[in-house]
Structure formats: structure tokens, C-alpha cells
């Protein structure tokens, strides 16, 4: 099926923080010669993301949930310019992620739940200095910004210790601090509270909702397996399953599609929703 390309002119009156149009990603197995050189985990074509259409408003906290292997990471990576789509388009603040990659990167922050994404032999501050330089922040502006994010995430006291001495929670906070260095308009948070204790997780969630979204009006795109987190924080969320968006709306709207669901949590509804889809 042909996809209509969206041009800059089409977008003048309608700019979302994040928008995708029939966004699709297919992973294909390597050719014969490449498969001799290296074994590939892909044996047949996999449609990881299938014609996804999403619109996330500016200042919205939007969640993405789905079972393992549903396509969440692939979708986020395409939005963050790490991966090229097979077809369709993705826009960040109206900028095409393929053709305006550099400008898109100036508008986004990326926070991974991956602990290993720092130089463990450097201090927290030295790590932030390095990544701030990659984000075109230098000199006094850089130092002020680093101190600001360290203060906000309560990391100032540990800033001059090597990262390898940090706890998981501190590394996660440092990861958020790094994502905020360039003051991005859109922040991608990939499981920001993974493997950290409930006390720190609660502080981080408050920081995301109260400071980043309500306070500064940032757009946050959050993926998480902790569904209570999505329920507590997000304005809206989408469910992705087998690469397709099967639901997009609020918790109440999901409840509405499922009939009588009094006292059910999002987790209960999600499990039932996914089970029904599998039966169908």
C-alpha cells in the first residue's frame, strides 16, 4: 500500500511533539554471504513495528506498554533516530527523524534503564561534562547546567565520586540528569525505575511528573513494565502488541472498552486485554 509523504507545508498548522505516520520497521535476515560471516538471530522477516500512527501533544506525559518483544524498544529507537524505519515517517516537533536528524537530536533527551551506559572509572560530574560536550554545551554554561541537574536529582554530594561506587538508584538518577543536560523539549524514558527500590522510584516518578511535565512543560515518552507507574503518571498511554498499536487513550477509556472493570488496576486490565487479543 502506498503511504502519503507528509511535507513541511502540511505540518504548519498541526505540530505535535511526537507524531508517527504509518511507521513500520521490518527486520530482515542477512543475505547468504553475510550469514556465512556471522550467525544472525533473525531467520525470517520480522515485522517489529507495523504501521504505527501516534500523536503526542506538547507537554504530555505519554506511556507505551506492551508484552516483551511487542516492538516498544524498536519504536523508541526509531523516534530517537537510532534506527531507520523501513517505511512511514516519524516527526519530533514537526521535524522528520530521517531528513532532519541533527535538529531532532537537539530537541530530544534519551534516558535508558541500562546501568552500563556510563564510564565507570570517571566521576559522575566528569561523565556529565563529557556528554554535555557532545550536546554542544561548553564552558561556564556547561558547568552551571551540570550543577543544576545534579542539585535537582540530589546527586551533588556524590558528583565527584567514581560512577562504579554508585548504587543502581544513583546511576538511574545520573542517567536522568544526563538526559536533561541539553534541556530537551522531548524526553524519552526507557524503564527509568527498572531495578531500583520503591523509595527512590517514587522520588523519580514525582520528579518526572511534577518537575519535568507540570513544571517545565516537557513532553515525556515513557516505556515501562511497571504498569502502576503508567497509571499514576501518564496522561495517556498506548498498548503495542505484535508491532501494532491496539489501544491509545486514558486508563478510563481502556476500562470503558472492557465493560465492568470496577476496582481493576491497569495491570489487571492489561493482562485481560492482551489475553483477549491472543484468543482472538
Amino acid at each position, binding site marked *: 500500500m502506498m503511504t502519503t509523504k507528509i511535507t513541511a507545508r502540511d505540518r504548519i498548522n498541526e505540530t505535535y511533539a511526537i507524531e508517527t505516520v504509518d511507521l513500520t520497521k521490518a527486520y530482515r535476515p542477512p543475505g547468504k554471504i553475510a550469514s556465512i560471516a556471522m550467525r544472525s538471530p533473525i531467520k525470517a522477516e520480522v515485522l517489529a513495528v507495523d504501521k504505527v500512527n501516534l500523536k503526542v501533544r506538547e507537554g504530555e506525559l505519554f506511556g507505551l506498554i506492551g508484552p516483551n518483544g511487542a516492538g516498544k524498544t524498536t519504536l523508541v529507537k526509531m523516534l530517537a533516530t*537510532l534506527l*531507520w524505519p523501513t517505511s512511514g515517517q516519524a516527526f519530533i516537533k514537526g521535524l522528520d527523524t530521517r531528513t532532519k536528524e541533527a535538529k531532532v537530536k537537539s530537541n530530544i533527551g534519551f534516558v535508558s534503564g541500562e546501568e*552500563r551506559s556510563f564510564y565507570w572509572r*570517571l566521576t559522575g560530574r*566528569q561523565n556529565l561534562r563529557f556528554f554535555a560536550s557532545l550536546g554542544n554545551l561548553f564552558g561556564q554554561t556547561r558547568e552551571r547546567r551540570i550543577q543544576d541537574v545534579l542539585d535537582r536529582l540530589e546527586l551533588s554530594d556524590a558528583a565527584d565520586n567514581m560512577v562504579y561506587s554508585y548504587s543502581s538508584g544513583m546511576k538511574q538518577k545520573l542517567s536522568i540528569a544526563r538526559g536533561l543536560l541539553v534541556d530537551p523539549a522531548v524526553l524519552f524514558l526507557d524503564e527509568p525505575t527498572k531495578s531500583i527500590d520503591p523509595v527512590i522510584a517514587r522520588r523519580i516518578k514525582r520528579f518526572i511528573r511534577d518537575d519535568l511535565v507540570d513544571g517545565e512543560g516537557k513532553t515525556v515518552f515513557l516505556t515501562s513494565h511497571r504498569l502502576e507507574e503508567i497509571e499514576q503518571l501518564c496522561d495517556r498511554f498506548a498498548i503495542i502488541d505484535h508491532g501494532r498499536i491496539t489501544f491509545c487513550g486514558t486508563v478510563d477509556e481502556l476500562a470503558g472498552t472492557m465493560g465492568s472493570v470496577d476496582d481493576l488496576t491497569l495491570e489487571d486490565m492489561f493482562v485481560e486485554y492482551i489475553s483477549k487479543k491472543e484468543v482472538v
Partner: protein
Amino acid sequence: MRVWRKAWAFLVRDFRTQMSYRLALMMNVAGIFFSVAIFFFISKLLGNSINPYLTQYGGNYFAFVLVGLAVSGFMGTSMGVFASSINSAQTEGTLEVMLVTPTKLSEIVFFSSLWSFAFTAFNILVYLVIGALVFGLNLSHANIPVALIILALIVSIFSGIGIISASFIMILKRGDPVSWLFGSVAGIMSGTFFPIQVLPVWLQKFSYIFPLFYGLRGMRLALLKGASLSAVAPNILVLTAFVIAIIPLSLICFKYGVRRAKVDGSLATY
């Protein structure tokens, strides 16, 4: 200006990381001392027996092999640093986080190599200083400007090969055939440790297809005999031809590698 500041950020990152392993740094210098000592005593053992082969370079095996080690040190760094910078960023988990910043992958790879080049230069300097002060290496006739021109050409050629190698690493993750070919075969064929005249005649002919052969020959003439630019011009011309052929090819390969990795989503995997 931004580019320089970013380059500086990479240098500071790698310098601080290196300095956090102080014992390794001290052992590195000690290792150079022992390695120089080994070649000094091998040179004494050989005496004048291989000198007919070395006449054109001044007749001293110790000086011959030290220059060989210096040049092959730069060759090894140029060839390996780009692939290893991608590989270590993949395994450290920092590559994706760097790639979502406005800094291009080509800049990330290039700037990540700077410390390795600086460290190699430091190592070579230590080699030569220990060789001169402790073991009597004589470089008083060296033509340094010509040696630097040859060094720049060698680094350019092998950086090109290193970038091709990095392109393979982006797709295949490990085991690129380019560095294998130039790393192991060229070591034997180009005369790093011995003059190629000791090889069988039919094998010597293959030496002429390796740029390292011309680099070593030019560098030895410049450092050990003080050869002028015109005297080493044939070597410089051949090296320049290699640069013209390899650098554009390496950029094409790199562009293709990035494209492939972005399409199949494997840039950060290893």
C-alpha cells in the same frame, strides 16, 4: 571551535580513564624498557652477520628494528583504533547514548581515536629515548621533517584501512578480514623486524603491494641516514598514491556500514 572542544572532551575522557589505571601505565613503560633491551641484545648477538642486508640503513640492527617497531606501532594504532572505539562503546553501553546527541558517528569514532594516537606517540618517544639514553641509539643524523611527512602518510593510509575495518565491525561485530590481512601478513612481508632481502626472492615481490614496506623504507632512510626529501621521494609518491586510493574508499565503506547498521538496528549490539 565546537569541533575542537568536542575533540578535547574525548581526550580528557580517555586521559582520565587511563590515569585511573596507574599500575598499568607504569608497567607499560617498564614493558617498553624490557622490549628495547631484548632487541639490543639480539642486535649484539647478530653482530655483523646480517649487516650486508642493512648497509643501506647504516648497518645497525638495533636502530633498524627500533624504527620498525615505532612505525608498526603507529600502523597498529591507525588500523585498530577506529574499530576498537566502536567495539568498546558497544560493550560499555555508551554508544547509543552518544548517538542520540547532535555529535555525528564519524566525529565520535574519529575523536575516540585521538588518545590512542597520543598514547602511541608517547610510547614511541619512550622507545627512542630509552634506546638513545640507555642503549646508545644514534639518531643525530635524522631528518625529522621528512620523517614526519612519511609518518603522516603512514597514519593516513592505515587510518583509511582502520576505517574500512571499523565498517566491517559495525556489521560483523568481530573478525574483520581487513585488519587480519594488513596486521598479520604485512608484518612479515614489509620488513618490520628484518630486511625483506632475507625472504625468498619470490616472496619479496609481494612486499611491494604493502604500503608499510614503503613507509618503513622511507622512515629508516630519513631517521637513520638523514635522507633528504628528494632521496625518499619515490617512497613518498607511492605512499601518496595509497592515500588517494584508500581514504575515499574508506569513507564510502564507513557510510555504507552506518547505513546498514541503522537499517538492521545493530549499531549498539556486539
